[in-house]
């Protein structure tokens, strides 16, 4: 008896949180239906599936919704045992990866959003924060792989890799929108940068990222919106 395995994902093309879930599904080779949400006019399905936060991504598996990107990634890893295992077996390594994934998700990304949405002193402050966090992250990556980082391929990609590529893949688009490079990732975070580069070259990742111009357009819109509403 074939087991029903219906998977759908409610998302928004420019959201890095949605990107994470898409990458996870693609790395595991899980077929899914994608539903693009208009965030200014959220579908009734989305509001039904995520009444608490009313946000994307929402993964729906056989009618049951799972929300919060990091929670979804662990759910995918625990439910589908084929393909790469996103978390290793060893509890200590798992704890390290969860810690750093949460760090990128909360500490680094929130400040990157601030860099996009502010200017002047507020932006300078956000740039300083991101630089500090990136230094810590660089040390963190070293501590996770004390013997050196293994070569990445589609079979050994992990949870932190997915978070890294989804968070930093719009790096070039951000530079274009701001008109200058506020943080030189290659110089300040060589390990992170080389890992990111290797990830971006994987076919699954290349296929999952939206076109550069579309990302630039979305980021420009977000920046304009934020700066307009900030000015009194």
């Amino acid at each position, binding site marked *: 008896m074939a087991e029903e395995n219906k998977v759908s994902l409610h998302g928004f093309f420019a959201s890095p949180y949605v990107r994470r879930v898409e990458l996870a599904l693609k790395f595991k080779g899980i077929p899914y239906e994608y539903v693009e949400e208009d965030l200014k006019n959220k579908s009734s399905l989305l509001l039904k599936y995520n*009444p*608490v936060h009313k946000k994307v991504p929402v993964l729906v*598996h056989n009618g*049951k919704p*799972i*929300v*919060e990107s990091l*929670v*979804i990634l*662990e*759910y995918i890893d*625990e*439910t589908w045992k084929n393909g790469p295992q996103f978390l290793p077996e060893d*509890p*200590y390594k*798992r*704890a390290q990866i*969860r*810690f750093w994934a*949460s*760090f990128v998700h909360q500490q680094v990304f929130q400040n990157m959003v601030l860099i996009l949405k502010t200017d002047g002193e507020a932006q300078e402050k956000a740039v300083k924060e991101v630089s500090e966090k990136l230094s*810590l992250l660089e040390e*963190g990556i070293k501590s996770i792989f004390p013997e050196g980082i293994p070569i990445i391929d589609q079979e050994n990609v992990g949870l932190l890799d997915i978070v890294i590529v989804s968070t930093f893949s719009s790096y070039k688009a951000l530079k274009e929108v701001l008109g200058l490079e506020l943080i030189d990732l290659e110089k300040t975070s060589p390990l992170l940068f080389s890992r990111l580069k290797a990830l971006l070259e994987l076919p699954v990742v290349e296929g999952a990222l939206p076109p550069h111009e579309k990302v630039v357009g979305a980021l420009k819109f977000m920046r304009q919106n934020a700066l307009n509403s900030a000015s009194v």
Partner: protein
Amino acid sequence: MAEEVLVFGAWGSPFSRRVEMALKLKGIEYKFIEEDLTNKSPSLLKYNPVHKKIPVLVHNGKPVAESLVILEYIDETWKDHPILPKDPYERANARFWAKFIDEKCLSAIFKACWGACWGEEKEHEKAEIEHEKAVKEVSELLQFLENELKEKRYFGGETVGLLDIAANTIGYWLGVFEEASGVELLTREKFPKLCNWANEFVCVTAIKENLPPRDKLIAYFRNRFGAGNASK
């Protein structure tokens, strides 16, 4: 087999108490190190250089930080008395609500209890409105938890689980904040299930033994944050 488990924490912190509750539930022996948060020890700073916060669990010399990460580490390392269910969907659910409590509830509760500033006479009306808004927000958040409990004895089902432990802020500290600030939030009329749960929760041995003395805690918060929003 020599095993060393250290917990760096603070007597009044729900976060470090969570770690102690989980260890007690599993019958794991540990050494507790009380930190003076105004004068953090070199050990703490060495074990948690990223956030410099408690709690930190140190297992055979290896540090784990962030209370929810620590709870998962404890569950994966010591398999007796599991605190997470086996089913991936239920695990995702527990993780979601634990994050909800940490990311949404605590700050909302604080704002409702101590947020508004009772300044000059003309500020009173504005502060009153802000206060009402904050209380309403807490009410909405607690309603989600009330609904999630359904007919279960504990969030974890028949026995206390990760979500119950994470909800220690709701089960005990919330009552302390209410008494310290004079603001009523977790009322029996509106939240009968949550109130029942809180009563059951604090009676569980492993939990009861790890609750800081109520009067001492109330005095501490009154001292630290003032008499609260209900006073005029």
